[in-house]
């Protein structure tokens, strides 16, 4: 008992001294569990996130936009790969992690349970969804677990690229024809509140937050990150002449932040519980890809085994 207590003290001391925790280091079970949950959720979000955007690849309205979107969705697949590898460093296989997604046991970011209904949604996702993700991910570049922090450094560079490209799509639409501007505003209207929900419950209602801060997995609270995002994004919307769909939004001289309205937490809880507009479709699409691909993966394994056997013979 004293041993574990000592180990825990050493572990916390290391974290307090801003040293990274590496896969071979001793770590409390709860730290490991917490990270496996968080990193695998993050990995699943990258992969499920390919679906709403992939939905527009065949319909992108110019070849340049099509190329940019293809490259973006490909980046997200790459992020999924890095993150599944980071989970593997904690002793959980990629198969197991993916099985948990396919069975519906594991969660992914609820934002991807909303549908992409127009081309402007591709702009809105890049601008708002990648934009919100960056807030989290910049913080995670300094997270206490080494492999996660390093994966985040690579990912962050690409995410900020995505955010700029998305914002550019919106800027072009906003200064385009009246129909294009309407398309952009409609996308902002639909994606604004779900984007704010991406930061998770309020600090008062966030069950994992306090421990995560102590372990320096997280370094800023949900509410702090959300506020930074709002302050930044409101100004970006103003620049391109779109309006944020929140009647309570106004600048507060005293706090030097925007005050804003109330998130519809009933909607949030509903989508998390599986009742969002596309939860079923997203999971069905992942399962179909996995099942349809089974014979492909088997063939690759069988061939590799034959080849190894022939080499040995």
């Amino acid at each position, binding site marked *: 008992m004293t041993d574990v207590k000592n180990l825990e003290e050493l572990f916390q001391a290391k974290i307090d001294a801003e040293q990274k925790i590496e896969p071979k280091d001793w770590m409390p079970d709860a730290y490991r569990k917490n990270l496996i949950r968080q990193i695998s959720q993050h990995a699943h979000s990258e992969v499920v996130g390919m679906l709403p955007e992939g939905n527009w690849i065949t319909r992108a309205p110019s070849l340049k936009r099509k190329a940019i979107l293809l490259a973006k969705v*490909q980046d997200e697949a790459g992020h999924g790969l890095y993150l599944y590898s980071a989970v593997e460093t904690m002793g959980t296989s990629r198969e197991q992690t993916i099985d948990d997604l396919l069975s519906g046991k594991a969660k992914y970011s609820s934002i991807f349970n909303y549908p992409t209904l127009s081309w402007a949604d591709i702009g809105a996702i890049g601008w708002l969804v990648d934009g919100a993700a960056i807030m989290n991910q910049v913080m995670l570049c300094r997270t206490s677990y080494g492999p996660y922090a390093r994966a985040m450094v690579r990912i962050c560079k690409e995410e900020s690229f995505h955010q700029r490209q998305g914002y550019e799509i919106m800027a072009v639409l906003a200064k385009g024809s009246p129909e294009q501007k309407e398309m952009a505003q409609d996308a902002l209207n639909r994606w604004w509140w779900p984007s704010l929900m991406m930061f998770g419950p309020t600090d008062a209602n966030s069950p994992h937050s306090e421990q995560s801060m102590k372990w320096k997995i997280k370094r800023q609270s949900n509410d702090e990150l959300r506020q930074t995002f709002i302050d930044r994004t409101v100004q970006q919307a103003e620049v391109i002449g779109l309006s944020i769909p929140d009647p309570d939004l106004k600048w507060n001289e005293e706090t030097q932040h925007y005050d804003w309205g109330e998130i519809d937490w009933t909607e949030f809880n509903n989508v998390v519980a599986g009742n969002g507009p596309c939860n079923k479709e997203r999971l069905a699409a992942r399962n179909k890809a996995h099942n349809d691909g089974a014979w*492909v993966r088997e063939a690759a394994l069988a061939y590799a085994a034959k080849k190894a056997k022939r080499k040995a013979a």
Partner: protein
Amino acid sequence: MSSKLLTYTLRLADDILILSQRLGEWCGHGPVLEEDIALTNRALDHLGEARNLLTYAGQVEGKGRSEDDLAYLRMERQYTNVKLVEQPNGDYAHTMVRSFLFDAYHLPLMQALTKSKDEQLAAIAGKSVKEATYHLRASSEWIIRFGDGTEESHQRAQAALEDLWTYTGELFEGDAVLEEMTSAGMAPDIASIKEAWSKTVDQVLAEATLKRPADAFMMTGGRKGLHSEHMGFILAEMQHVTRAYPGVEW
């Protein structure tokens, strides 16, 4: 001559654009994450080549049409791709066999085109050779894995070959446009491309323990803008947003 060059360039562009469009449908639905990335890469490379060719076709035509005008504002009858590339993705064996049959043609074509007397075509081909080499290697590897993998993968690959073989004749069709381009030294002799293609196909299928289908009836028509019924849907999907808001920037 410039109308022959335009026709020829558009054929090259349409093949690769429509194949890219088909491959893009896979994005997010691949059999394993690494393949999702590889397929998207393939789609991106093809799209890049198509954009170069379409831009050049617009310049040759001299009417101020951009890559997007040519991609988004032509109808089925104006598209001159081979029917092979418009065939549906089907299972992964169909997708990979379709790409393999195309790659085995595309690589020697691009290699030969680097020697074209048309400097622009030579330059565009020069940019594509490295990618085309990689594509052919990757699709060949899959054909071998499928053929020599499991019984199921062998059967699926053989079935895909049988289904798609009828579309391979079109890759090597000659006509007045091609003849004139070839005699002007701007396009390679198609017979030599067919020879290279046939050799690659035989080698890869042998290693894959797959059977080369007999040359029975070969489909035709794509080069004249006579397509399968799939083509209208491909273009409807690809073009609908652009056509719904004419003349705007994206």
